[in-house]
């Protein structure tokens, strides 16, 4: 029965709890719990239904014995504030980089349609990626600050320059092809001659920066304290360049008639083999705890389907690549596989920041391993 208007502020009464038996290893003996319970049992306040019984105003004390290797299970490292736009950029960077290599090859071997389509793909992907990247900044209007310095210790800085250089080359090369496609109707005037002159070198520049654009993002991710990304540092570049190759080839197989896509199909098959092998090798070499985010949950699903789609696309390319429809479907599978790989890796790294276990356990393990090996002078914890 309510006797005071302040009673409405009381928390709802919970049913009385008996002593908890969930700690079989004798933890209960420790601390104030034993005393508190003894007090309860001595029947200091018999339970009555009129609200007059003794009510705990604070919950029973819980010592953090169960989670002694973390602070209330809170994350230790912080995930970067990147959202899906950055993951989309990872995909676009791969497509753009791979396409510029295909475009340069087509340029050298005289495959006009392949050259045109891959150049346009490269420019479009780089453009979409760059916009996504800028939009993800906390202060997008200051994106040009990236261009105020070159910093070798920052993969993001180098990547910005690679992307800028790549976009310039790919843009010029694609502009030339677009102009040609439109029957030279663009009002370019004397610029057309210049465009023709720099077209080939521009395609070369884009091809030169294509592989770095496709692969630097692996370093960007690995050069962080996110346990999964950092632990994949030795092999992630191989995964990323492979997945870039299959994505670019896949797009080429969608956009371009089969008679010109033989190199793209060859690259796709090579890429699929490399992608599957590199991903498996990477996961096998990683710390058994740090690799978990890659294998479970949403990233695990993405990685699994990425492998399936890559293999399906590779087989389709190999067996039916000369058939236009089969080639296009296989290409779509390959592009999707590449996107899944990058989204999977992206999410896995962000997930690995959320649980302190992924930070603490591999670190404790490597510290213990160094100590076993006799290296005892490089711990951050010292007693002198």
């Amino acid at each position, binding site marked *: 029965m309510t006797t005071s208007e302040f009673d409405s502020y009381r928390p709802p009464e919970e049913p009385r709890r008996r002593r908890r038996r969930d700690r079989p290893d004798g933890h209960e003996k420790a601390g104030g719990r034993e005393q508190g319970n003894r007090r309860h049992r001595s029947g200091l306040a018999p339970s009555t239904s009129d609200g007059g019984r003794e009510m705990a105003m604070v919950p029973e004390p819980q010592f953090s014995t169960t989670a002694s290797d973390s602070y209330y299970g809170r994350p230790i490292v912080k995930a970067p504030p990147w959202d899906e736009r950055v993951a989309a950029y990872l995909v676009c960077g791969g497509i753009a980089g791979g396409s510029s290599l295909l475009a340069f090859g087509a340029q050298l071997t005289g495959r006009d349609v392949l050259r045109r389509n891959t150049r346009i793909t490269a420019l479009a992907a780089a453009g979409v990626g760059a916009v996504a990247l800028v939009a993800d900044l906390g202060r997008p209007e200051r994106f040009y600050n990236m261009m105020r310095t070159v910093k070798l210790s920052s993969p993001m800085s180098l990547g910005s320059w690679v992307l800028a250089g790549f976009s310039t080359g790919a843009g010029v090369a694609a502009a030339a092809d677009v102009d040609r496609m439109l029957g030279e109707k663009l009002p370019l005037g004397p610029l057309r001659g210049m465009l023709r002159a720099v077209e080939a070198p521009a395609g070369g520049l884009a091809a030169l920066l294509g592989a770095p654009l496709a692969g630097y993002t692996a370093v960007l991710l690995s050069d*962080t304290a996110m346990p999964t990304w950092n632990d994949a540092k030795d092999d992630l570049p191989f995964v990323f360049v492979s997945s870039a190759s299959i994505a670019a080839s896949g797009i080429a197989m969608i956009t371009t008639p089969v008679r010109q896509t033989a190199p793209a199909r060859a690259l796709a098959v090579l890429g699929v083999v490399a992608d599957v092998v590199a991903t498996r090798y990477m996961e096998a070499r990683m710390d058994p705890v740090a690799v978990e985010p890659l294998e479970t949950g949403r990233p695990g699903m993405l990685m699994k389907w990425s492998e399936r789609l890559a293999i399906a696309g590779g087989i389709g390319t190999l067996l039916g690549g000369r058939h236009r429809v089969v080639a296009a479907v296989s290409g779509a599978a390959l592009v999707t596989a590449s996107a899944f790989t990058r989204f999977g890796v992206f999410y896995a790294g962000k997930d690995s*920041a959320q649980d302190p276990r992924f930070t603490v356990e591999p670190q404790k393990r490597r510290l213990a391993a160094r100590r076993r090996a006799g290296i005892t002078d490089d711990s951050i914890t010292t007693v002198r």
Partner: protein
Amino acid sequence: MVQLTQGPDAAVEGNPTADAHYEHPHPRKGFFTDTSICIGCKACEVACKEWNRNPVDSDYTLSNSSFDNSEGLGADTWRHVAFVEQDRQRVEEARESGRALVSLGMPTLRAPGGGTGGADAGAIRPSARTGARSGPLDGPIDAGLVGGLQAGPDMGGLDVLSSLGSAVDSSAVDITPPDTPEFRWLMSSDVCKHCTNAGCLDVCPTGALFRTEHGTVVVQDDVCNGCGTCVAGCPFGVIERRKDGIAQPKTDRSPAPGVHAEKPSKADKAEKADKAEKPKKNKNSGVAQKCTLCYDRMTDGQTPACAQACPTTSIRYGEREDMVVSAQERVAQLHAQGRTEARLYGANPKDGVGGTGSVFLLLDEPEVYGLPPDPRVPTRDLPRMYARAGIAMAGMVAAAGLAFLGGGRR
């Protein structure tokens, strides 16, 4: 800035300002946070928020983790007091793990002799290892422990320890933490580590993060474009991008008991809506933010807000060399008292981040406080990463070349 990584040489020297090529480097400044005498008052959190005008970082909620409701360091919280409740078994384990550190034969970290400080630094420093004897503090209490605080010019009446020291015989001051055999309550004020090899600084693509002349790491909020790379680069999870930076005082209150809430009039509603529409945006929204070690105060020769506000001198500020020395003396003293759970965090220049500017004395494993047990600055492996990526990129070009050669003319 263009230097790829700071080599181990820089780490051993201990003063990272050499890498930043300052013509007139100052002594490296830092904190020593002695968690054994922290009382969890959160004065440091409050002082930090006030001085740096940091916005609230969440609704006022209880996080259900002892007295800790600010949860952790972040863009808006640059000092964070951790509260850990432990039972006897955990105390014993901590004591054991600390003892194990001794028997490992850890390196003896002596302050580099004849360094920058010279004579006056030696004068501040109490004679080495006085604290190794058990018993009440004699030497460290006057000079070493509060050396940094005395340097502050305007401590005035706030300087508790030194006033105590003059009024009371120093041996009467007992700063031995109470030894409760049944349980213990750990409190620790966490802060940016201001690493010798700072991950955030290395990966910043704009140069917004820089090394100050005092060896600390500071964000230039007018340069940062909020790319967020530093957030991932920090092995301690300190730096964060400020979300909206909206600082609004709470105006709504639940009505007092017995008073019926008045229905807000239309005018009130309109006024409130007006206010809600235009929340005052903090100028640093969308920008990476972290502890600056009160760079603005430091340049004026003042003590950082948190250290000045700390009532127990758990947070000390001064030249890093002196901080490490007093930390070493304190840990030796605690060990002599049988409190082998005491250990230092960040004092070793050979660790994964080259030593930290903020040194801590902990009473348990670092992860218990939410600190990484073996942090390693990611850029230390960057040359290798670049090399591996180079091989992969060459492979990609080779594969493309092979595809065109194998694909023939048609």
